């Protein structure tokens, strides 16, 4: 019950932030001199009538604040209530309409639906890789503090936080695709597609290819996350192992194995979960670069394409959705606290 109310609260709190993201992106994109139609028609001899017609079609002939109200979807609401001047306004973000891409000539929301899944697949597998490697290594390092295993893990973590993810990607491609020829160097195979789309016969073959294509980008994107998680896991475990209750358990003759698993491990995971939530932002930035290196048609690559083609609405739409994904990710991490630490109360009355 408390959890439900907390979730609802967090979602409500994030509304001003989401609104702010839309404002900032809208202003940034519109700070560019000229307007999208000029840029789109830069190489063509267009008559003033044509330009005016296109501008009217995309609502670009309105003043900027009206354009913003249109984009957010407030004009539509004002129109629906019957305020004169707004009647007949187009739907906006609030109505689920993210605008229209001039370059692709498709609604932005449509493009998102095809581009978001690959990015999520990449990010989720990168975090899975990071957690699956960092947590055991961090625990091992804490257990064998100041021994060779600890030193190795610290060096790995240091290199991990100091290396650009896209360079790791390039190095992996050079080593495993170009030199050894073991793994494909780019594009993903999507497990939700029909196997015949890739000329494959069975579902298992499709999964096999998905994994093969995913390994390199996953490692490239996950290394930074692995390094930061490992550091926090290590220091958090060291702190737990020094707690009095752990020493008490030890004095009672509880086996080291059990102490590790029951007394030290669980409470050490809270900082790790916080970190994963905070790391989402660097992971999304990293995904943009990794998608470019591995030619993955995800959100990041869409954003870069939108910027290259000066597609205003697509740029705003992609940035806003990326911001929303982050905000939702943080809410999910906050909520998963409750499952790990029952002491967290979420502002309930005692």
């Amino acid at each position: 019950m408390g959890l439900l109310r907390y979730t609802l609260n967090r979602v409500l709190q994030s509304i001003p932030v989401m609104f702010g993201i839309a404002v900032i992106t809208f202003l940034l994109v519109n700070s560019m001199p000229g307007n999208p139609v000029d840029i789109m028609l830069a190489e063509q001899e267009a008559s003033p009538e044509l330009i005016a017609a296109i501008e009217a079609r995309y609502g670009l002939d309105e003043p900027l604040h009206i354009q913003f109200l249109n984009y957010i979807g407030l004009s539509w609401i004002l129109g629906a209530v019957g305020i004169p001047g707004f009647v007949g306004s187009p739907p906006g973000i609030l109505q689920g309409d993210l605008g229209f891409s001039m370059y692709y000539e498709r609604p932005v929301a449509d493009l998102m639906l095809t581009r978001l899944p690959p990015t999520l697949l990449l990010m989720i597998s990168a975090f899975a890789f990071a957690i699956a490697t960092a947590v055991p290594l961090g625990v091992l390092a804490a257990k064998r503090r100041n021994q060779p295993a600890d030193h190795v893990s610290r060096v790995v973590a240091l290199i991990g936080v100091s290396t650009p993810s896209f360079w790791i990607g390039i190095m992996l491609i050079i080593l495993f695709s170009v030199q050894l020829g073991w793994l494909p160097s780019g594009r993903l195979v999507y497990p939700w597609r029909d196997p015949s789309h890739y000329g494959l016969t069975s579902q298992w073959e499709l999964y096999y290819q998905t994994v093969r294509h995913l390994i390199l980008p996953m490692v490239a994107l996950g290394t930074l996350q692995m390094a930061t998680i490992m550091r926090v896991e290590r220091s958090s475990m060291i702190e737990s192992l020094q707690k009095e209750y752990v020493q008490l358990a030890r004095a009672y003759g509880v086996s080291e194995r059990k102490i590790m698993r029951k007394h030290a491990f669980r409470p050490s995971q809270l900082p790790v979960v916080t970190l994963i939530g905070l790391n989402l932002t660097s992971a999304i930035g990293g995904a943009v670069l990794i998608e470019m290196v591995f030619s993955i048609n995800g959100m990041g690559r869409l954003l870069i394409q939108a910027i290259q083609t000066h597609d205003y609405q697509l740029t705003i739409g992609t940035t806003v959705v990326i911001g929303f994904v982050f905000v939702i990710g943080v809410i999910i991490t906050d909520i998963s606290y409750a499952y790990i630490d029952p002491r967290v109360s979420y502002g309930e009355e005692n």
Partner: protein
Amino acid sequence: MAIGEQQTQEDSDGGGDGVEANVGWRYTLDKIKSDATARFGLYVIAAVATVAIVTTIDANLSRLTLGRVEDFALAESVWYHPERHPDPGTTERRMPPFFVEGGSLEHPLGTDRNGRDYISRLVYGTRISFFVGIVATALGMLGGVLIGAVSGYYGGWIDDVLMRAVETLYAIPPLVLVIVFTVFVSGGDPDITYAVFGVGIAFIPVFARLIRSRVLSVREMDYVEAARATGVKDRDILRRHVIPNSFAPVLVLATLQIGVTILIVAGLSFLGYGAQPPTPDWGEMLRISHQYMHSNPWMSIWPGLAILITIMGFNLFGDGLQDALDPRIK
């Protein structure tokens, strides 16, 4: 009593003789000196800084004295000469490093596609990473410290408004924010200057949040209370008492954040929105070498290593600084 406390604070800041203080600059320096990894980090930073400063001075000299043969030769090995290579993209003049067939010791790490010496470009690329890393981080720190300190000190609606704004900025991934800022604010003509401001703005939130949490505890201190009671203006209290006493963790964060800045700017240049050709820059070099992964994989290795070593220096030093400034770690 309150004034007395402030006095000891100042004493220990100066590393007062005879007093067993475990805070203050001299103590911090001593701890870093005794920490081998932090020392190593400092050496790396010093080396990178030297290269960056020397190449900057030299580049200015060669610009002033353009026409002198030796300076021009150097300039040509780093930048291309518009008259000699009118269309550098069309002529393919890459050379592999000396240990690969076809390479020579004249260009130990080979040349890029315009026939420019790779080592020279690597050395000159240091400037962008180093200075952009420091200046952009400093901008973010300045903005973040101002916003965070005001927010934490005044509280109330000012705090609410500023923190919502900071949270919003924080919700847009830095790289994405910097790309959009650089491209659109520059009017479609991105440049490293825009990148510096973009990164600075993108980093305001991390600094603002950190210093705000520190200020919240510092503003309750007796010496702040005393200053307020004696009628010191809020602005002076912030400047003289609150910010200086909340600053230590900010300094640690700034050192570590320089590494992140260099990562982001490298990524930005890799996408083509950072340093513009013909300026030598590691991220830009990776962008070009990415196209030659099959024919000359070595080109991709060196700039990445340079980035790795530089960032590692800042991270090692930052970690050491953190240990030295954290009173809990003995």
